[in-house]
Every structure is written in C-alpha cells, then in structure tokens.
C-alpha cells in the first residue's frame, strides 16, 4: 500500500533547498570580501529559513507515515541535512564561527541534490521491514546523524586550519623556544606554538565539534548494540556498519587523546579530523555504496 507524499512536503523541501543555495552564494561573496558583514548575516538568515522549512517538510512526512520519518536513505539524508544546519547555526551563534559558512552550505547543496536524485524506490513511503519496526530507531539513529554533522563541520574547520597555516598566514606554525633567566643560573623554558588568531580559532572549533560529536557517536554505537540484542539476540556481530562505526570511533578517540598533549602540532590534529570524516562517510554511506554486505543493507544503492 503506497502512501502518497504530501505536496506540502515537497514544497517545503524545495524551499529549503533553494534557501541553502541562496545562502551559499551570500556566504561565498562575503568570504571573499570579509568586510561585507551584512551579507554573512543574510546568509545565516537564509540558512535558518532553510532549517524551518525542512522541519515543516519533515513534520508533513511524519504525519503521512504516522511515525518518526526515518525509514529509508532519503529520510536519513534529510535529517542529516537538518542536523548539519542546526549544528552549524548553533556553533555560529554560540561561538561566533563565521569563516566557512560557504563550505557548509556548499556541502549541504550536495546532500540536497543527492537526496533528490535518489531513485524512487528509495524515496517512497513504504511499510517497514519487521526488524525496523521499533522505537529503537529514534533512539539509535538521530544521535549518530547529529554526530556525523558535527564531525563534518569539525573537518571543515580542520581544512580551514590547514589552509590558513599553509597558504594564508605565511608564518605557518612557528615553534618558539622562550628562555627566561630569572636569577643567576635559573632559567625557565617555555615551548610555544604560535599560530595566527584565526588558525587558533579553527583549531578550537574542531575541538569543540569533536567533543560534542564523540559522546554522541559513543551513545549511538551503544544503542545500536542494545537494539541488535533486542532484535537479533546478539550485542555485536562484526557487521560492516558496526565495524566501520568502530573505526570512526577509534580515530576520534585518537584525536581526543592526542590533544591531551599540549605540544602536539595543530596540523596533525586537523589531519586526523579530516581522516575521521572520511571514515564517517564510509560508515554512513560507504558501507552500502561499496557493498560491504552485512545486516545493515536497508539503504542499499542499486
């Protein structure tokens, strides 16, 4: 029995996509000329409009489904996009991040296009396989999508850090050894890594994103194990999606433990964040696209 997709839902989804498109151009222009603050603010406003629109679209879909709209790849991409916008706007508001809005909205456009170009079979509202008919879906998947969104923004921030230290501020990462003699023979040494203020800011942003994203990833994996136990009788079956999530977990655990060492280079940290986001991609979409097989083959790409 095929449930019809509401016209309203399509309308609001399209509004959302167009708003992202507009905000991308506003951000891009304002990035090239940093004095045009008003453009940046307008870009954020459009992004916020996009968020509202997407929320309404999801509500319509949820009403049609009579359940939380998270049943196929299309819906998970829509919620993923929602999480990216929400996370980015939150970070922009709380921590005043405003340098890579164009990267985020550009990526969002790709997500929207990908979702739109999915084959009909992946988009239509269809009844769920028995194993998926569970409240666990709402507990297991959204935290993971949110963590993916945060890791993505963290990766953009890491990329911005590398660009900043390699190309823009020509000083790169200067390591200075400061030695101060306070009394006869007694010297105090200090080891300082100097980076430009913007680079330092990007580093902080990546750290913030990983600190929020890592616990969400942990909770998501654990909930997945509990759900698997409930449905299949086993907490962990070394399924490709499970192991790929574990790879992502290991990488970001390495990032956090690396950062405990204050002498570590910011470039190394940024690189780890970038490797991590590749793992996030493999976990989310790669497992199905590259056909690793296993039990999670719900969102398989034909």
């Amino acid at each position, binding site marked *: 029995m095929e449930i019809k997709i509401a016209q309203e839902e399509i309308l609001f989804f399209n509004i959302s996509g167009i708003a992202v498109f507009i905000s991308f151009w506003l951000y891009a222009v304002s990035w090239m000329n940093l004095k045009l603050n008003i453009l940046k603010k307008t870009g954020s406003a459009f992004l916020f409009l996009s968020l509202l629109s997407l929320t309404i679209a999801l509500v319509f879909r949820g009403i049609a489904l009579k359940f939380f709209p998270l049943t196929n790849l299309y819906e998970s991409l829509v919620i993923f996009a929602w999480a990216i916008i929400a996370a980015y706007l939150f970070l922009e508001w*709380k*921590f*005043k991040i405003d340098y890579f809005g164009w990267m985020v909205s550009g990526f969002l456009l790709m997500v929207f296009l990908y979702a739109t170009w999915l084959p009909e079979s992946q988009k239509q509202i269809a009844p769920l396989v*028995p194993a998926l008919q569970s409240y666990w879906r709402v507990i297991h998947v959204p935290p993971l999508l949110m963590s993916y969104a945060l890791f993505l923004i963290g990766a953009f921030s890491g990329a911005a850090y590398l660009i900043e230290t390699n190309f823009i501020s020509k000083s790169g990462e200067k390591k200075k050894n400061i030695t101060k003699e306070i009394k006869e023979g007694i010297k105090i040494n200090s080891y300082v890594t100097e980076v430009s203020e913007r680079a330092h800011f990007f580093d902080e942003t990546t750290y913030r994103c990983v*600190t929020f994203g890592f*616990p969400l990833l*942990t*909770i998501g994996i*654990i909930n997945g*194990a*509990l759900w698997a136990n*409930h*449905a299949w*009788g*086993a*907490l962990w079956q*070394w399924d*490709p999606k499970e*192991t*790929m999530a*574990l*790879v992502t977990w*290991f*990488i970001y*655990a*390495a990032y956090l*433990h*690396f950062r*405990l*060492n204050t002498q570590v280079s910011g470039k190394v940290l940024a690189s780890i964040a970038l490797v991590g986001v590749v*793992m996030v991609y493999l976990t989310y979409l790669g*497992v199905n696209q*590259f056909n*690793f*097989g*296993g039990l999670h083959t719900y969102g398989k790409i034909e």
Partner: protein
Amino acid sequence: MLNKKNIHQIKQLFIEEFSSVKLAITLFIFLAITTLIGTILPEEPMVGSLELIKRYGRQKYLILKSLGLTDVFHSWWYLALLTTLGINLIVASFKRVFPRAYIAFQWPMELREESIKKLPINCELDLNDKNNLNLNKIESSLRKKRYKAKINNKSLIAVKGGWHRLGASVTHVGILTLLIGCAVSTLTGFNGMAQISENEGFYLADLGQSTTQIKSTEERNWLAPISKMPIWLGKIPPYLVNVNKTWREDYETGQPKQWYTDLSILDQNKNVLARKTIHVNDPLEFMGLDIYQSNWGKFAQISFNSENASVPVETFMGEEVIFLPLSDDIGIKLKLVQTQDQNTNQGDVLELYSIFKDSPIQKFLGKVNVNQKTQIGPMNIGYFGTNILTGLQFKSNPGGFLIYPGLFFIICGVFIAFGSKKQIWASINAENNKIIIGGNSDRAKGKFFEEFEKLISELIQNK
C-alpha cells in the same frame, strides 16, 4: 638476575610504558586500520569459505587465511591489539585518571591581585561607600549562582561544576567493565541454531558452539549444578530442548503475522526445568540461557522425476505455494490445498498449474494426492506431505552482568563530562580601595563571559 630490585624495576617499566597515552593513541590507530581492513575484505564467517576461494583462487585464499585476513576479527593479532588496549586502559586508569578524580572536588588555589589580572577574564571595581561592595556580597551573589565560595581574609575563591571532571573516570570504568564482561562472555558463553519439527528435540551440546570448543558429553556437569550457577565455563549444559508445539498466526490477508513455539527444557533425568511459548522478540530465558524464535517455515516433501527434495512453502497472495521454474518464461506453481477427502490421511492435495512470466494466466495441469505420484507430460511429480520446522536460536551471555553496567557507566560518564568547570577569584588590593575579580572556565568560554558580565552588572547595582 631476578632479585627484588630487578623485579621492582621491571614493574616500574611496565607501568610507565603501559600507562602512556602515546601507547593508547598508537593502539587506536592500529585498531582503526585493522578494523578497516576487516570491514573491506570479505570475511569468512559472513560469506563462507567457498565464496572466498571463488574470489581469490585457492592459493591466495590459503595465504590470506594463514595471515588471518579471512577472519580479521577473530584472528590472534586483532585479539592481541584489543588485549593490549585493555591492559593500557587498566594501567592508565589507575595511574593517571582515577588519582586525578579527587581534583574534581578540590578548591582552587588562592590567587593574589597580580595573578587575577592575568586571568582570561577579569575586572577591576572601585571600593567606595556608594556601591556598598565587599567580598561577602560577591560570595552571596556567587552562592546564588550555585558556586561553592569561601573567603579567606582579603581574598575569595569560588568554583562551580568541578564534578564534571569525573566524566573521564566514569567512562574509563565503564569501558573496563565492558571489556571484562565481553571477555567473560566470549570465553565462557556459547550459541547455536536449530531447525526442529514438532515433537522433536535437540541437545544444546550437539548444536551449540563455544569459543573453547569443549562439548559436554558427561553425565553430570560438575561445574554447573543444575539448580545453582548459570556459568558454563566452556562446557555446554547437557540440556535437552523439546518442541511441544509450533504454529503460525496469520493476518486476515493471509500474510504471516507471528510465529509461536511451545518449548520445554529438560535435564538428564527428563525433568522439565522450564516451559514457555515463545514468539519473535519474546525469548525463553532460563539460567542465563536464551532461546529465541528466529524463523519458521513450512516444507513440502516432493519428488521431481525421482529426485527427492524438501522445498519451502511460501505464502503468496493468500495461497500456500511452491514455484518451480522450468525455463526463463515458464514455470510450475504447486498449490497446497486442504481437502475434506475422507480417503486421504492428511487431507492435503497439491494442485499443479503452469504459469508464464509476465502473465496472470495459469493453466491447471493436474493434482497429486499425498503419498502419491502423478505423471504430467514428461514430468513425474510426487508429494509426500508437509512438515513444519521452527527455527530457534539459542545463546548464553554470562558476561551480561558486567556488559550492561559497563555500557551504562560509559553513557553516564559521557553525560557527566558535559559541562565546564568554572572558577572565580576576587581579591582586595593592598590599598583597600579596589576589588579585583577574575575567572576562568575550561570550556564554553563565550557563555562564561556572559555569566561573568551578568555578575559584575549585578554587583555594581546598588543592592
């Protein structure tokens, strides 16, 4: 020479090396790489050895197998990496993480005027009769904001949210407990599958598999007295699982809704230890052993030109059918029909239709009674009744009592860590005409700045 001093040195070296964060990071990266390899390469437990030999050819397959790459997650080196991480975690937790836990509850050190001025956020306020400002006022203001504050002569210390620092310790305890629980389950647990008909049973020991691969054929299992401990320690209990009855419930449309099995667990003396009717997602739980309703199938025994086969019967559009394709376009549909025929014992008859691809037309060819054969054209089709097989899955998870608390602590630790430790200092300067206030937060510095701003504006209002 292994005297006391050397042993002590070795112990120190071990603790130093194994508590290092560098080791943890190295292990994380190696585990990430190996897990990635295991995810991308097809694994034997999932696809089977035949599939692997087909893909790689026998030579390559044997080489890969000897390296452990055909079953990465059960290979000795993967297990070694995990074990090393476990040891690293234990040593580091006790040497580094837990000892710092008390810091969560400590007061910060007193700071003087010059040091407060170097804090990331600080402010200088005049002490005069107009604003009625003193350290006590600051203390009560901070207490209202749920800071712990105390005054020492001319200086004030306040701290809030120190307990958030416990998050790391709690999470590490959780991971430790989880790893121990997993080890217990892997080493002492077992699992298996069975497809059984009604009024038949199976011994767990025959079908179950445990890591230690010791099967119990003894009369009595002294490690697990039947009525006491559910710890099997590598020996599978000598229980007999009997299927008393099994059936399927359908929707009105004929689609399967739920499968049921009435099970009994019997000991060596055929005493019934437990009995329950299970269905999907409602297993039988007895002494740490869980039996799940995994799948269910009706099978028809047919012979096709003297070749016997047990074929699964599907429910398709309200009919119970078997499809036999003869070529790309034509096939035969065998439909199971219940008759009221007094002559047949089972009342089952198989009706045969020829069906064509992309066409709803079906042509009736003939029928076969139970325990008979019918010749239709070149084909000889015999039918010998149906039987029902219920698919059961059983497992024991002895480490569960550690695994679940472990997961709980991990999640708790994550939530506890969400929050910053904020510290505020105030000091009256030497001339007694100014108060210097400053503060620091280990995270969320923006929000802390706003709070500090609010505090100052509250203080300068004449209250």
